[in-house]
């Protein structure tokens, strides 16, 4: 135990005794994330403001009588140009394509006569719009006109035809939709989190071991400082466990920094914007928090073990980096898989797959659906694999070939 404590203490001192390392590991990521998300939020907000303030340039051909007054009554702000049926549309379409005009609405000739003279079996007139989906102004103008103005105009003409619009309605569905919802509030509120959080947790927990593990093992081999430890009267397994404990603690701290940064920074990205339907908060019970903590700890242990194993076999830090990068990609893929799998039925043995099983378990913790068997399987699976990896690391530490290239 003395060896484990001493080795772990040195690893912690190595990080906390180096201001540059503290800055690059714990402070810089938090600041960068805050600045980045704030900038994205500002840019997105600016873009939305710009679109809102823009007065669309709209061309209307064969506008029916009274359409101009109807538009003004709805206070739709636009620079509208009315065209005759003989006017060419080619230049206007070219302008829409180049972004110089936003929307073209074409009514059929004698539109009102056709509408008013409608009888059963007659062809229904079509109002055609032309816009450019690649241009934000054009898309917004089309959305405003098609969804708001033309729909209202359609209702107005329909009311003229039938008198009471209610006579066309036989029944309505859910006048007050909020009273229709029967759901577990915890599950509903955690839905968005259960999609995003497992992915973020499995990804962010890896960043600590990735940046620290290589230097703590391969770096020490390269610098010749590992050999000095190997001639000390301490079991190799104690050196391994000491390093793993220290790296796990540092990785947890790094992950906490990332998590707090995200929690603080993400709202800045959506600053001033309405994000409908995104339930991004959830309250956890003590049991859920304990489950989450244990899953995260087992995940950190696995990450540290796998990075350490790679680092032990690598001859240089550069070589270790090239081996760790593909592992990181696998971790991201495992996180993404759970992100889109929802809370669908998953066979129990799949929870034993490291990372994937943990991400699925985290997902179910958040929605309050994790069973004891699923929790136990995910913890047991990853701990067994990590213990095997630790045994392999210890074996590698005892290998002359690995440690001294002999």
């Amino acid at each position, binding site marked *: 135990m003395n060896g484990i404590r*001493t080795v772990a203490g040195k690893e912690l001192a190595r990080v906390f*005794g*180096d201001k540059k390392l503290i800055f690059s590991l714990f402070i810089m990521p938090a600041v960068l994330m805050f600045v980045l998300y704030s900038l994205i939020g500002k840019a997105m907000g600016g873009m939305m403001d710009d679109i809102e303030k823009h007065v669309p340039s709209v061309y209307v051909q064969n506008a029916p009588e009274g359409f101009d007054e109807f538009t003004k009554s709805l206070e739709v702000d636009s620079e509208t140009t009315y065209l005759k049926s003989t006017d060419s549309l080619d230049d206007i379409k070219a302008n829409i394509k180049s972004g110089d005009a936003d929307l073209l609405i074409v009514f059929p000739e004698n539109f009102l006569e056709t509408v008013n003279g409608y009888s059963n079996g007659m062809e229904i007139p079509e109002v055609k719009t032309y816009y450019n989906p690649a241009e934000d102004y054009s898309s917004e103008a089309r959305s405003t006109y098609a969804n708001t103005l033309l729909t209202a105009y359609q209702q107005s003409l329909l009311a003229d035809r039938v008198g009471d619009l209610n006579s066309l309605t036989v029944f309505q569905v859910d006048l007050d939709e909020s009273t229709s919802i029967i759901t577990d509030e915890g599950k509903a509120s955690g839905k968005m989190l259960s999609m995003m959080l497992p992915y973020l947790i499995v990804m962010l927990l890896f960043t600590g071991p990735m940046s620290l593990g290589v230097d703590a093992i391969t770096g020490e081999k390269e610098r*010749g400082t590992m050999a*000095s430890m190997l001639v*000390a*009267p301490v079991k190799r397994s104690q050196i391994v466990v000491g390093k793993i404990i220290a790296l796990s603690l540092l990785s947890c701290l790094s992950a906490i920094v990332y998590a707090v940064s995200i929690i603080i920074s993400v709202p800045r990205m959506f600053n001033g914007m309405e994000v409908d339907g995104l339930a991004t908060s959830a309250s956890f019970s003590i049991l859920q928090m304990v489950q989450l903590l244990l899953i995260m700890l087992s995940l950190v242990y696995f990450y540290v073990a796998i990075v350490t194993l790679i680092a032990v076999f690598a001859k240089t830090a550069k070589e270790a980096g090239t081996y760790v990068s593909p592992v990181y990609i696998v971790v991201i893929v495992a996180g993404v898989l759970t992100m889109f799998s929802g809370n669908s039925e998953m066979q129990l043995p799949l929870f034993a797959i490291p990372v994937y099983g943990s991400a699925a378990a985290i997902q179910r913790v958040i929605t309050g659906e994790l069973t004891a068997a699923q929790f136990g399987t995910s913890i047991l699976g990853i701990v067994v694999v990590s213990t095997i990896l630790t045994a392999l690391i210890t074996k590698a530490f005892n290998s002359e070939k690995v440690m001294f290239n002999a």
Partner: protein
Amino acid sequence: MIQVNNLTKVYKLSKKQMAEQKTKKNMKKAVDNVDIKAVPGEIYGLLGPNGAGKTTTLRCIATLLKPTEGDISVCGLDTVTQSEGVRNKIAFLTNEIKLDPQFSPTYMFRFFGRLHGLTEAQINERMKVLFEQFGITDFKDKKIDELSTGMKQKAAIAVSLVHDPEVVIFDEPTNGLDIVTARTVTDYLKELRAQGKVVIVSTHIMTEAEKLCDRIGIIINGQKVMEGTLSQILTETQGEDLEDAFFRLYEKYNTEEVR
């Protein structure tokens, strides 16, 4: 006491190493049937050219490598089956072993003291003695990265001796040091001998070996080709001095067949 019996160490070469060494054999005998006996109160010198097998021999004694054949005992403990016990009895230093550059000599001294199971009081006592002996006190709290080569070597030697070991194994301890620092190191080795410690050093510097070592073993191509006191070696080889004796042996044993 150190007793090395019929030590043979064979390395398996990778394809890359085979290409680098321009050989088709995938095995290399780094040490071939070497016997060494070093006793308390003696400085034993291991001499040989680069790649002769000196460092491999010392690494085997220090438990970092396992003998392919033969056995080694240090203070009565087997280096394979009782390696942890052996490591508690020895100080081992080579150019490949370095102290963590971001820590100070004080931190590293305490770190290794704790690994050796010493109490804080014992560590402080040893630190005072050794830091004064090697003149480390002035830079004891500076980062090792900021120290000169000589200062680093002095710190490394002091740290390796934290547990007051019975056996001291130094691989080229004065390599790259200025004359003053080298003298400090050799003087201390003599002091250790006077204290009754077993000291084994490997060196390239013939004059240093002549002045420092009580007995000398010469290794060429993994084989110990001669062993004895300076006068015994000079008599046997008809050499004028150790360098001359060494070259006579080198010409005799560095043959293609041996290689």
